[in-house]
């Protein structure tokens, strides 16, 4: 991680499902290049033997008992749907 690897903006935009314009791609690539360059300094930290922190103070076994509770009505579930039919969310045909 001595020098910032080039960010393949096309590939990342595809993974992130963002249809970026050519202009956006160019701008982001440059801006994020600067940010990544800054982030490079993390490589300087000696993290030998250091455990990663996913939660500032982890607790274990946070769960609920398996007791069913009421959910949303169909009307509320679909209230914000951009398109629907037969109480289901309508999407263009999904091509596998």
């Amino acid at each position, binding site marked *: 991680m001595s020098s910032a690897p080039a960010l393949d903006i096309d590939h990342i935009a595809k993974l992130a499902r963002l249809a970026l314009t050519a202009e956006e791609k160019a701008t982001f690539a440059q801006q994020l290049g600067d940010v990544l360059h800054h982030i490079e300094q993390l490589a300087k930290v000696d993290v030998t033997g250091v455990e990663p922190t996913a939660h500032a103070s982890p607790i274990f076994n946070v769960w609920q008992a398996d007791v*069913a509770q009421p*959910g*949303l009505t169909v009307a509320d579930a679909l209230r914000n749907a951009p398109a629907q039919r037969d109480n289901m*969310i309508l*999407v263009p*045909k999904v091509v596998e």
Partner: protein
Amino acid sequence: MNYEAVIGLEVHVQIKTQSKMFTRVATGYGHEPNTLTDPVVLALPGALPVMNKAALDAIIKAGLLLGCEIAPVCKWDRKNYFYPDSPKNYQISQYDQPICLGGSVEIELPASARNLMGEHKKIPLTRIHLEEDVGKLNHGATDSLVDYNRAGTPLMEIVSDPAMHSAEEAYAYLTSIRATMIYGGISDCDMEKGQLRCDANISIRPVGATHLGTKVELKNLNSISFVRDGIDHEIKRQIAVVERGGTLVQETRDYDGQTGTSQSLRSKEMAHDYRYFPDPDLMPVRVDAEWKTRLQAECPELPFAKQRRFFEQYQVPYSLTSVLVWDRMLADYFEAAAQLAGPGKAQAVGNWIVNDLLRELSRGSAAAVGDAALRPRSPARDGGLAAPADAHALATSKVRPAHIAALVNMVDAGTVLTNAAKEIFIEMAATGDQPAAIAEKRGLCAAPIDTNELETWCRDAIAANPKAVAEYKSGKDSAINALKGPVMKAAKGKANPKLVDETLRRLLAVM
């Protein structure tokens, strides 16, 4: 050249819980679309997941049943990919710290005949992890409709090592997993309801080779016979490609059980990069010894272990145990009846259950056993054995273990003869009356025989058949049967065969 197939299975099992994996809205099948949702299921802005304790119990139990090591600590990861059936566009799953590691599934391969026990093997497992199911897409001609009722249902993924080598093994593996899950009360494993789903990774290599060939993932093996047929088909397809001089490509293929063909799924998606990372919304799970011990105590004896014990304890043959042990209720029923009947009568008890009781039950609920192909049964190919009755029919049958035990003892004591006992059984199944009462009421008891009279008939038979006596004396045991006919005839068919046999032998012995 001869080829060997290498098969690994990924089996998804829906865990039977009241509520979903990460929220408490109810689970269910066959409900009106989008009636089992809440903000968490729909991934509304701001919704957060909370684990379902019962699902954790279930997977640990599954792990214990299959001899897995239960990780002392496991965590949740997000598997990121976009698909309309996945509301968050990531699936909460377990990546590098699954809850169950290792373990194995014992399978039995078919033998040359169905009354013979086949070879047993242990298929090693890689891991079992917990995750959440996705919603359901209903594809139309020009659009698709999404129902999120299934989304968020607890799902267990059982991953085997690439350690199977035939469709037969894969089939036996799946059968065994299904029986284990049903036994443990973990899942009903109804494939029609999608409660058990299977993907197979298949490759071939020349026999003797140790490398792995190009792997093809076969999807949608959504009935237990499709698993066998689909894998068979894929192995043949791969061998054909190689023998034609072609090259196999790593791909995912979709098997169509109706037509028995498969086709490549050329996804429009780019190569997958799931960007797994620990889910910051969930806390890790720690499994201590006490939790494991408590679940271990709830673990039932599995079918093959039960079968071995039945051989030992009851001396019942394979032809019976291979039916009895695959249904936990039926096995328990057998044991209860065998205990009540007393020593030495287990085989008779087993015969009554397998031949008569199951017939009566399937007659009583023909519809309920219509999907018999989906139930656990003997792995013996093409069954032929009576399918175990469904749980409801057995539980509500009027014939209780005590009835069977009583009937077996009546036959054994000669109180009723076999043909009469069959009649008694049918009435018992209809009315639930005690066999003695039925025999009494319908005059089916064997006539009480005066032992002096019986001895006289036996002496007459011995005197009248010197040739048979000579043969018997010279060691041909079956020659005694020739003497029984005249005795029975004299008794007008109502003598106790056991007593006749005993009397004849006693008299012959002193000659």
